[in-house]
């Protein structure tokens, strides 16, 4: 009887675990391929045209206008997230906790960040490069195992 009940409990546990998803996960999402300094070394302010930039870097993700001239922007995004449910294994030790709804016996630690890189080329009204610049926040993206640190 006890064995039969244990088997049922084990089956129930497995079903709950499948339904509740994973207790620990490293997740990452990236948008586009990053552009590096070496990739843009060909750009010479006052000489390089919009067409040259297109040939080397492809079509920009955004085109914007400004009073001084158009701006081409290439975007890159990197998102990292770490999550662990510290109470995930508790029902194995205290099966009575199975009566508690799954959402009420979670103790999730979760941390991560969004790192964005933008590469912008600023043109004059004749589509000749005036200057270019990176906007880099790549340090913002990291797997954070302990969310309470500064």
């Amino acid at each position: 009887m006890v064995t039969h009940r244990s088997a049922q409990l084990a089956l129930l546990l497995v079903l709950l675990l499948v339904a509740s998803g994973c207790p620990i996960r490293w997740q990452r999402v990236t948008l586009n391929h990053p552009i590096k300094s070496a990739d843009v070394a060909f750009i010479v302010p006052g000489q390089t045209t919009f067409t040259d930039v297109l040939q080397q870097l492809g079509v920009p993700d955004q085109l914007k206008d400004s009073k001084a001239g158009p701006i081409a922007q290439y975007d890159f995004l990197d998102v990292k997230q770490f999550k662990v449910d510290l109470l995930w294994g508790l029902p194995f030790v205290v099966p009575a906790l199975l009566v508690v709804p799954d959402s009420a016996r979670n103790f999730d630690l979760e941390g991560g960040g969004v790192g964005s890189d933008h590469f912008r080329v600023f043109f004059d009204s004749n589509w000749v490069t005036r200057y270019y610049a990176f906007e880099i926040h790549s340090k913002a993206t990291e797997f954070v195992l302990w969310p309470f640190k500064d």
Partner: protein
Amino acid sequence: MTRARTMIALALSLSLLNGCAFVRGKYGDRFNPADIDAIKKNVSTRSEVAARLGAPDRIIEINDHEVFQYYNYDVKWGTVLFFSRANVQGQDLYVFISGSGVVDDLVFGKAKPSPEFQFWPFGD
């Protein structure tokens, strides 16, 4: 043999707990080269562009030009056990339209590489 069985059982158990998945998704249609070839500089009009490519996703004013921007995204997402990674790649097309409503330029350079299926979230 016992060890191999144990490893197989462990792998199966882990896959039950967390699962594996490879997912492919798209936002917007890929650009049809025939539609792009049909748009001719200094000939095609704004309405012809809209008829071929549909309403633009964005309209921008640049250098006294109206610019139609079209874009789409391709997503590949892999999950294996505790690790998950999604790669997203965008493609863009710009059509520059002059004040008289005729196509002045069409910007569709080399296609960006397709995203990869990956599940390992570490490294580059």
